[in-house]
């Protein structure tokens, strides 16, 4: 599927709030929100890439993105934890108060973290919970 080409940002659209440290060699796309709550911080290492529209929200500790890690677009990372060096986080994935090992890959659209908090919703077309369906990308099976 063709994806419409990206527009260059008119200005630097990154929103930064709280204690946030970014290595100058990190590449951060437009529309990214970096928010560190009080007593928390975000550290972004060298050569890190963060995709369009991602949100990093640190609370209750340090959220660190180590050297060379790549985050796709629309990634949501909340709480504290460490994304290991050269890890790859697929687009629209959600990571809650968890750490990812160096070199590891997180599939697009997945959820890592506290599963007990997931909203249970009604059955879908397939008679499978939307939860399973979206998490596994498996449509009407």
């Amino acid at each position, binding site marked *: *599927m*063709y994806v*419409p*080409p990206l*527009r260059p940002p008119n200005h630097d659209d990154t929103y930064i709030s709280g204690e946030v440290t970014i290595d100058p060699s990190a590449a951060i796309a437009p529309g990214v929100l970096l928010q560190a709550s009080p007593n928390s911080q975000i550290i972004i290492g060298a050569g890190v890439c963060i995709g369009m529209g991602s949100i990093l929200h640190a609370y209750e500790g340090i959220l660190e993105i180590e050297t060379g890690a790549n985050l796709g677009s629309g990634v949501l990372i909340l709480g504290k934890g460490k994304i290991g060096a050269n890890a790859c986080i697929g687009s629209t994935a959600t990571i809650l108060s968890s750490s990812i090992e160096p070199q590891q890959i997180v599939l697009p659209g997945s959820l890592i973290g506290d599963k007990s908090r997931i909203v249970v919703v009604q059955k*879908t*077309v*397939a008679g499978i919970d*939307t939860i399973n*369906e979206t998490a596994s990308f498996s*449509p*009407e099976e």
Partner: protein
Amino acid sequence: MVVSSPAAPPTPWSKSLVEPKIEPSAYVHSLSNLSGDVTIGANVVIAPGTSIIADEGAPFYISEGTNIQDGVVIHGLEQGRVIGDDEKQYSVWIGKNTTITHMSLIHGPAYIGDDCFIGFRSTVFNARVGHGCIIMMHALIQDVEIPAGKYVPSGAVITNQQQADYLPDVESEDLEFTSLVLGMNDA
């Protein structure tokens, strides 16, 4: 900086030579991105945050009384055309009194008939959707022709003709549901 290749895709900010043709009774919100050879019929409503760009695939035709809601994207591939109801060739044709709801993606070549409903975040790409079809939410319609009056449930992925041919017909409860959604947008 790397030299960009000549095959780089055209960019939406490049000014097309052809400007959109908009009927005076149509409403196009200032926060919509509308460019290229696009014809907008009478009483069409184009909401904010929409992107209707006929730069590669063109032209587009949006017929009278149709409603394009917030966050919709309409774009077309350079290749491939559909035959509109006026027998001319289009990259994207959208019929009369049709509703394209929030965050849908209509990607040409695509034909959508009269009185259709395309639900939230659904995609229509390289496909024909006949008159009076209802496509619910988070659905994908690709490489198929959907006969008139068919119902596509939420989350369905319709990518081969056999699936399209076996779709159920629209029922009255579906129309009640869609009118509820339409009421939301009119308010």
